[in-house]
């Protein structure tokens, strides 16, 4: 009968709670309806059932019992899901655990009902376009505090805590209300991308300043191709360029002003003004790839792979995503966003950080297994396995066996990360914290790129979005120093 694997229990308590609430809402009017009302809302699964626990030891800090169960759901996106299957096999071998696996793009569609129903899976890679927003999950009390995992002894060197083996600051994006509730596992860099082959052919040098960048765009235009392509249907991408430029021009203070919803984050910020005017110049001078404002990311990136534009903004998943579309000699290269005059950060500075948030729901049925799984993810063995299967770096410091040969794009990001160092890596947090504000700024950017609004108007609209987010009492919980 297609019943769920997690059986309902705690019927009495849940029911009482439900009836109380329904009564408060005036929903129960006819007593005979109560059987329906009992069917109505799912807050009743207590979730954390008594799984027989194993002994807690130094090697087994969460007390995983042999032959338990573990359910893993991963976002099957740019990294595929083979890496997770490999991990699950390793885990099953070690603990005799019965693991189950689901790789999907429809995280919200598949999991939101289960969060509501109180029977979420144990480990989730909550990512992609249909990610369930972390701020929303956090507000609902659905996310387990991962501090225990970070404080546990590292698999490779038990004398160290797991947190001490990670790249500095890589757990920050997982912060909600001061707690690390998601483990952003993949180390991603964001910026511009170009084809080494195209640049060599045309004799163009990697631009370090905005003027050089515009110059190449103009040359590209003269050569009959677009200067900048972007993924217009999803203005997330052009916002990468705009926000990076603001951070590099105004320094970390400009970035924090936005994350902390400063009343002068955009209007009144010199860096923001200079940056958005610079981006607008691309539009104004007609340097965009034709039609790019209306293209999906797939369409736009494929055009770029066909040498129809010089630059495109994206994160380091780009190479994997476009694997099939990239010509063999394309020589994909990462480019930090070029500098405006008087920038506070150097050219090498990049937006870098951990992405691909892995979470453990508070209502997961097998929390010990889930936490141990996460600890193992942060071992050199599993990190290398990820690099092999998914062709990307993880937040584990020196986490990849040097014997793994990387593709040109990924290799160029490794160099960029090294050049930037911890000091010149930055990352915005507002997209995770304030989804409504993020979307509002994206909409404004789309208008700017389509030349329907001017930079002054963009600043006003971005500021309005910030001010609106600041009015929400929930925003008081988030602050970065």
């Amino acid at each position, binding site marked *: 009968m297609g019943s769920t694997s997690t059986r309902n229990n705690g019927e009495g308590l849940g029911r009482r709670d439900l009836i109380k609430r329904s009564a408060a809402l005036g929903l129960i009017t006819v007593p005979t309806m109560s059987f329906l009302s009992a069917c109505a809302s799912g*807050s009743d699964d207590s979730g954390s059932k008594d799984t027989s626990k194993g002994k807690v030891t130094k090697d087994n800090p969460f007390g995983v019992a042999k032959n338990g169960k573990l359910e893993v759901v991963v976002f099957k996106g740019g990294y595929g899901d083979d890496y997770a299957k490999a991990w699950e096999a390793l885990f099953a071998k070690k603990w005799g655990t019965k693991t189950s696996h689901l790789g999907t793009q429809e995280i919200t569609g598949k999991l*939101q009902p289960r969060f509501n129903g109180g029977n979420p899976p144990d480990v989730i890679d909550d990512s992609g*376009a249909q990610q369930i927003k972390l701020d929303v999950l956090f507000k609902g*009390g659905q996310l387990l505090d991962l501090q225990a995992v970070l404080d546990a002894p590292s698999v490779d060197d038990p004398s160290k805590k797991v947190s001490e083996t990670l790249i500095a600051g890589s757990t920050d994006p997982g912060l909600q209300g001061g707690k690390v509730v998601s483990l952003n596992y993949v180390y991603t860099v964001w910026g511009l991308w170009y084809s080494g082959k195209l640049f060599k052919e045309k004799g163009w040098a990697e631009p370090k300043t905005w003027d050089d960048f515009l110059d190449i765009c103009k040359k590209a235009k003269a050569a009959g191709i677009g200067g900048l392509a972007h993924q217009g249907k999803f*203005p997330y991408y052009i916002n990468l360029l705009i926000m990076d430029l603001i951070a590099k021009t105004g320094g970390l203070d400009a970035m924090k002003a936005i994350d902390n919803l400063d009343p002068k984050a955009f209007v009144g910020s010199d860096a923001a003004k200079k940056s958005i005017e610079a981006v607008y110049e691309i539009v104004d001078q007609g340097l965009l790839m*034709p039609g790019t404002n*209306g293209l999906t990311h797939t369409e736009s990136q494929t055009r770029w792979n066909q040498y129809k534009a010089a630059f495109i903004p994206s994160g380091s998943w780009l190479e994997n995503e476009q694997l099939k579309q990239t010509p063999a000699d394309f020589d994909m290269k990462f480019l930090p966003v070029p500098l405006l005059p008087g920038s506070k950060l150097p050219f090498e500075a990049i937006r870098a950080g951990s992405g691909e948030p892995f979470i453990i729901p508070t209502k997961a049925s097998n929390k010990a297994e889930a936490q141990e799984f996460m600890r193992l993810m942060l071992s050199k063995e599993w990190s290398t396995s990820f690099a092999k299967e998914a062709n990307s770096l993880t937040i584990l410091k020196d986490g990849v066996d040097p014997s793994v040969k990387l593709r040109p794009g990924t290799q160029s990001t490794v160099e960029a990360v090294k050049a930037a160092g911890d000091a010149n890596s930055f990352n915005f947090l507002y997209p995770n914290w304030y*989804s409504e504000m993020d979307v509002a700024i994206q909409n404004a950017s*789309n208008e700017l790129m*389509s030349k329907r609004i001017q930079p002054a108007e963009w600043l006003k609209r971005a500021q309005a979005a910030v001010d609106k987010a600041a009015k929400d009492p929930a925003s008081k919980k988030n602050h970065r120093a």
Partner: protein
Amino acid sequence: MRKGQYRFVAGFLLAPLALYLIFVIWPYIQTFGYSLTDWSGESPNFKFVGLDNYTALFHDDVFKQAIWHNVLLLVFIPVLTILISLFFAFMVNVGGRGGAGGVSGVKGSNIYKIIYFFPQVLSLAILAVLFQALYRSDEGGLLNGILIKLGLVDANSPIEWMNNPKLVLWCLMVVIIWHGVGFYLVLFSAAMQSIPREIYEAALLDGAGRSQTFFRVTLPLLWESVQTAWVYLGIVAMDMFVLASTLTPGTGFGGGPDHHGEVIATVLMRNFLYFGKSGYACAMGIVMLVLTMIISVITLRATRRERIEF
């Protein structure tokens, strides 16, 4: 006898009513309940906030814009679809070369009916893929490809159909019209064929031209079908979710550019699933429901006519 009759009535109503109550009515009642809370959608915990969500709606410009778009769709989709279908139905049934009797359909009218109806059997999912490719904003899109080939559009500034605030709603309407015309053509054809030929012949004998015949004879006799069509199309125009959310630009169920492609359903779903404002979204749904009911009543009243018996 009477008792048996009641038992029979009750017996026949039991199963349909039970299904309907459980799966349709009760969830809607609960939705109303949720609309009075600050429910986030991800968590079963929420508190009662009274009518706050409803008062907030009055200040939500995006929502108001979406309602306005639905109203526009509600006017234009039925009007255009019905006009085009009527036109073709008339062509197919009365547009042929007159023989001795003077009124006949064009040759091959059945082929037309078969072709025209076909889009109706395609699911919205297929339409979404098809029109995404058609409206693509560079030379790779069918429309731009043709226009560029014909020299009507410069390859360097192709038409960004869905990224144009002035075009986006019309582009969505075209999809619905493309999809629906065949269905209403067949519907109207059927009604036209039920009109006795003598009426046409009498009209022609009186010296009426074809257009006169159409407006004076055909249309009034078709009024009931037109009214039915209006109601069906109105329901389509109020929804639009699948098409608007897949074809228009923007994060979280489309609705762009800059809310110009927004309909109530996209705003509702974005708030529901993306912003975690599910209680608020439920309030939107209730407003949508009330609007739909008001509009249906108005439509039915406004189009009510004396029924012509023949």
